[in-house]
């Protein structure tokens, strides 16, 4: 200590050094370790085969999803994902950062918990029972699956065979209007798009959730699309996709990312899948899993870009213009009437939709006129004559698709 007595000013070096160490640690932890970690190299085809043959039936982990879709600040859409219980509502998925906890145990038992600040929404599937729990309003929705549905769920219709069917097949596609939420779900969607449109390469090892992983990079050959590349990190041992990042051509950070921040492939405790509605809970019996979650129908399936919650009505089939990455879907569109049966939530979402529409810039051209929403990964045009066009392309592409009736 005599050094510090002789040089009193030198004491200040200590707090500065501590700050430096903390900063350096934070930076190295946050940075994805892209260094070669000594994994044997594998080709893209080998990796795909690995993924298809992966056999993981149980896991528990934390999934973090971040979206930076470059959408304008729209009143009514929670952009920060922070205020109150809104962040734990199942319909607020399209923007901001969200944290999920997942527990999977075979095809019949899954649980998904969306973590909000002092709130939580759970989807619990156990055998024939599906429960939706919302801590914000202390309500539970109960849905009983028929035996057929249970079997269909175990077959995993939406996923390539062999991939762990992350969730009951009915639940994920309907709950959040198609936004992929688990890494394997998103990977499956991206893989389905591959073909002659895409260059598939691999890069050095990545580190996701403390596990070493291979990275598969899909680059669209089509230059018209807004998707720059899709990077899929695949676990080097159990060959399960751990993270999916979608890069836009417009910015350097991922526009959409979903990945594990912690994962464990051990069989979760059976207690995680049991749910008994606690006393004082409003329990709704439902034939429709959607009833409790805002009444949005899934729009036309378009795998990579997460779509906005645009309620479409059934009349008239959607029209597909173009192919591959620059596919544009043109569909009839009407704002649903407020009194649509399912009471409060539908009226709320209609009001919200109208508010969003007002906030969007208007534009017009040879195709007509309407509101346009341009994000970093996709664009949407809602025309005044009742059509909606969307695709992972700039808005100008949508205009020409709309013009080509």
């Amino acid at each position, binding site marked *: *200590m005599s050094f*510090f007595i002789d040089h*009193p*000013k030198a*004491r*200040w070096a*200590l*707090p500065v050094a*501590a*700050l430096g160490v*903390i900063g350096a640690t934070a930076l190295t932890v946050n940075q994805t370790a892209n260094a070669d970690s000594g994994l044997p190299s594998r080709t893209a085809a080998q990796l795909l085969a690995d993924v298809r043959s992966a056999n993981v039936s149980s896991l528990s982990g*934390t999934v973090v999803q971040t979206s930076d879709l470059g959408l304008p600040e729209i009143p009514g859409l929670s*952009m*920060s994902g*922070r205020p109150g*219980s809104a962040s734990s509502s199942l319909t607020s998925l399209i923007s901001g950062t969200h*944290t999920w*906890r997942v527990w999977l145990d075979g095809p019949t038992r899954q649980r998904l*918990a969306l*973590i909000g*600040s*002092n*709130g*939580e929404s*759970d989807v619990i599937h156990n055998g024939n029972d599906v429960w939706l*729990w919302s*801590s*914000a*309003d*202390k309500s*539970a929705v109960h849905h009983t699956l028929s035996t057929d549905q249970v079997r269909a769920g175990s077959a995993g219709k939406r996923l390539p065979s062999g991939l762990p069917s992350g969730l009951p097949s009915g639940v994920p596609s309907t709950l959040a209007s198609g936004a992929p939420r688990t890494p394997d779900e998103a990977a499956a969607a991206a893989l389905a798009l591959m073909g002659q449109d895409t260059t598939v390469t691999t890069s050095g090892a990545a580190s996701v959730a403390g596990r070493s992983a291979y990275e598969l990079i899909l680059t669209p050959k089509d230059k018209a699309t807004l998707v720059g590349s899709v990077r899929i990190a695949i676990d080097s041992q159990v060959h399960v996709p751990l993270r999916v990042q979608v890069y836009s051509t417009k910015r350097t950070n991922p526009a959409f990312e979903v990945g594990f*921040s*912690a994962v464990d492939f051990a069989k979760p405790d059976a207690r*995680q899948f*049991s*749910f*008994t*509605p*606690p*006393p*004082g*809970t409003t329990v709704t019996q439902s034939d429709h899993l959607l009833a409790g979650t805002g009444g949005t129908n899934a729009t036309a399936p378009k795998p990579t870009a997460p779509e906005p919650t645009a309620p479409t009505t059934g009349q008239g089939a959607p029209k597909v213009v173009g192919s591959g990455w620059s596919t544009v879907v043109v569909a009839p569109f009407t704002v649903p009437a407020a009194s649509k049966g399912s009471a409060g939530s539908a009226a709320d979402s209609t009001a919200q939709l109208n508010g969003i529409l007002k906030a969007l810039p208007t534009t017009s051209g040879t195709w007509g006129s309407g509101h346009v929403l341009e994000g970093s990964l996709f664009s949407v045009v809602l025309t005044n004559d009742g059509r909606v066009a969307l695709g992972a392309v700039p808005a100008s592409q949508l205009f020409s698709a709309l013009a080509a009736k």
Partner: protein
Amino acid sequence: MSAAEPVVTEVSERARVAGAAPLSRRLSTRLLRSELRLIAGRRRNQMGLLVLAAVPVLIAVAVRISSPREGRGPDFLSSITSNGLFVPLAALSVELGLFLPLAIAMLAGDSVAGEANLGTLRYLLTVPVGRTRLLVTKYASLVIGAVWGVAVVVVAGAVAGIALFGTGPMLTLSGSEISFGAAVWRVVLVSLYIAAGLAALGAVGLFISTLTEQPLAATVALMIFTILSWIADSVPQISWLHPWLLVDQWMAFGDLLRDPPFWDNIAQGLRVDLGYAVVFGLLAWARFAGKDITS
């Protein structure tokens, strides 16, 4: 400064304790015990503890008289009626914004700046007590003060809550129910987590306290620091800064009420707490050890 604590008493107490402790016994707790006696003896601190204890009682009584509407009101409030242990949790979430940081700010203001203002600091340093040891003692007393303040809120809330609402099973955020015994554990964990955050705030307060000789200035400066942190934390445009703010994960104590508890945010909060405590503790040391004590 109340008349109940004449300056002379503090000085003579300090001189007696420090003088009596031989230099070789560095780990003696007598200095700390004397510091704690001084803190506990101050009339304003006793009044502060009363205010801290009054809030949960007020919440419990108010909820008892008028049951809150279902699913409305601040988090936890609507769950109080099912289990008395939600009273301390609701009280903590209410007091964490202002009252608890204010209590720490009062203690921190008194710790060094208060002594300097009274003129007791130089007497304290004439007796054979190293400056580093004095500072460590001051910080230890702040940490104990943080635990103390949280414990008062929790115990008062638990007593009032159990008396008015009983000891039913606790409803977790995940929709499951845990037994009363397990719920007590969760509340203890929540208290320790919050106390850790306040202890880190105490390190900031200790540093500010070494910068001035006006205890009020130190108290106000620490409150400004706290409130600015809360404001910065609520502005989404600077979200890159949020992980670095001390208060960012303070409200994450709700994650301990999930089933199973969700540790990610808690761990992040504790890391930030530790970082603040180390950096500001060292800053306080660098400042205090080389400071000219003029009063």
